[in-house]
């Protein structure tokens, strides 16, 4: 059974007097435990698709279901609670809170749970251990390299054990070495920890890490490519 189901999704934006149609009836399934890369030129709707999937935005019409839950009809409060439990999101710009340490940044999603301080501490240490930054937990983002910041962001995305990990151009701001490290980490999260991962990227090397590559163009799925890793 598909973990993610897009059914006849329409999405349009109003920019001044102009109406921009991004999706006009997109239908798409993503299997549980898969590693999917979304590729396509700018404006093709990759990030919009990710935003709809994470409940950060709503479709104009159609259905977006994740793990059996209809995301498109949830209220704002329901979406926040749902995101806290089911979605781990990684941004291109890392988007760590600069006033919090790596540890505190990773702890953020756990503050929304009923876990005790000790349980939260344990989980944060595990997550930072997975991304190889246990020795940087007291550092602030400004004290970390770009690659390290992105690994902290990934730790934040996985610490609450979400159903789905979504990454928007996660290597877009990184050098080649850091990119390779981050991609290797994502591969490990998928293969070793069975995380369902969806990544938006322009980078063919990043896409190679995925099991499936979806090509979008002008809001239409033009190709589904299965890769053998």
């Amino acid at each position, binding site marked *: 059974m598909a973990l993610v189901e897009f059914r006849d999704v329409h999405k349009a934006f109003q920019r001044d007097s102009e109406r921009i149609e991004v999706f006009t009836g997109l239908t798409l399934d993503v299997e549980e435990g898969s590693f999917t890369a979304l590729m396509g030129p700018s404006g093709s709707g990759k990030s919009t698709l990710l935003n709809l999937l994470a409940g950060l935005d709503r479709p104009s019409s159609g259905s977006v279901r994740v793990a059996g839950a209809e995301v498109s009809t949830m209220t704002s409060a329901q979406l926040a*609670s749902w995101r806290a439990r089911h979605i781990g999101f990684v941004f291109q710009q890392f988007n760590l809170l600069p*006033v919090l340490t790596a540890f505190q940044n990773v702890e953020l999603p756990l503050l929304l749970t009923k876990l005790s301080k000790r349980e939260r501490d344990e989980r944060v240490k595990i997550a930072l251990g997975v991304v190889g930054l246990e020795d940087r937990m007291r550092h602030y983002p400004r004290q970390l390299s770009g690659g390290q910041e992105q690994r902290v962001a990934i730790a934040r995305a996985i610490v609450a054990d979400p159903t789905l990990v979504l990454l928007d151009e996660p290597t877009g701001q990184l050098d080649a070495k850091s990119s390779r490290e981050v991609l290797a980490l994502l591969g490990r999260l998928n293969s070793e920890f069975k995380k369902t991962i969806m990544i938006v990227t322009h980078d063919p090397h990043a896409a190679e890490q995925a099991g499936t590559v979806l090509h979008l163009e002008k809001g239409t799925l033009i190709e589904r490519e299965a890769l053998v890793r």
Partner: protein
Amino acid sequence: MKYLPIVLANLRRHKIRTLLTVASVSLALFLFASLRSVITTLHANSQFGSAHRLVTTNATGIVFPLPMAYAAKIRALPGVDAVSWANWFGGRYGDGKSFFAQFAVDAESYLAMYPEITMPEDQRQAFLHERTAALIGTRLVDRYGWKVGQDVTLQGTIFPGDWTFTIRGVYTPTAPAIGDDVLLFHHEYFDERIGHAGIAGWYIVQIADAGAAATIAKGLDDQFRNSSAPTKTGTEQAFQAGWATMLGNVSLLMGTIGTAVVFAILLVTANAMMMSARERTGEVAVMKTVGFSDRTLFALVIAEAGAITVIGAVVGLGAAKGFYRAVNFNGFGFLPGFSVTSGTLALGGLIALLLMLASGVIPAMQAARLSIVQALRRVE
């Protein structure tokens, strides 16, 4: 409590700005407490006065004296128990930079009529039995280090010459409006030094029946209506209120300007706090993405504004209360009994609460209503 580190981290983000914002709130509330205390003290003093005491002044104005001969006539009026009198002296001590009031009083009747002026009995007797003796308030002891038995010389301004008095007693007022920085001396000595002019600045009339005050006052004034010095008699409270009214315009002016200054500071503070919240739009969007609800984000922004205003209020209002008490402030003698009342502190707290809401609610609502996608500018 688990969100406390986030609130504290945000407060530490720009330490100097946070410090200045807290300082602004403190200053605004310190000013507010100070100005309001002037008004409440003036009001409290205007309420002072025994229902059994009337004050008679020259109908033309208090600066014009009355003949001493009136004393016996007033005492003879029905309903009058006792009469006393006093004169404003207006002397200068030292370089004259620090002012205090001096009154020439008919000592025995004056002290009998004002039980609010208390002192040890031996000092009272020593004062009453020495023509050049003076009685001083406790504040003058603190200010000048004067001691009982010491000679003090004042330079007369209205009544020229050097006037030397021997301090024979130190009084403590039981009513703040009496003032604790006054020097009292014998009217008899005063009259002798000014060549037996036979003048009194005002009379204090003690009556047995407070309910008959209006009738007695009218009878008293009627008696002197056609004399060369007609009188105006009223209750002591009305007399005090008259003083307060004289200062009233100053109070209004100070209140108006002060309120404007306080609110200007508060607006600047609110603006700084709102700017601080607006700068973090992107971070709010990230927290929403992580799963923070609108309500939690609203509470976090309000908590931050609350921390600034609460600290500012505690410092500002606490400083006002502590400072004026520590220096025993009395407005250079014009505001005896000056104190920052609990009502003023409560009102200051309310202003702090309003400031917290004014500066916190708008950014908190903006944070709560923020569109994540727009904030992150990730629209393709």
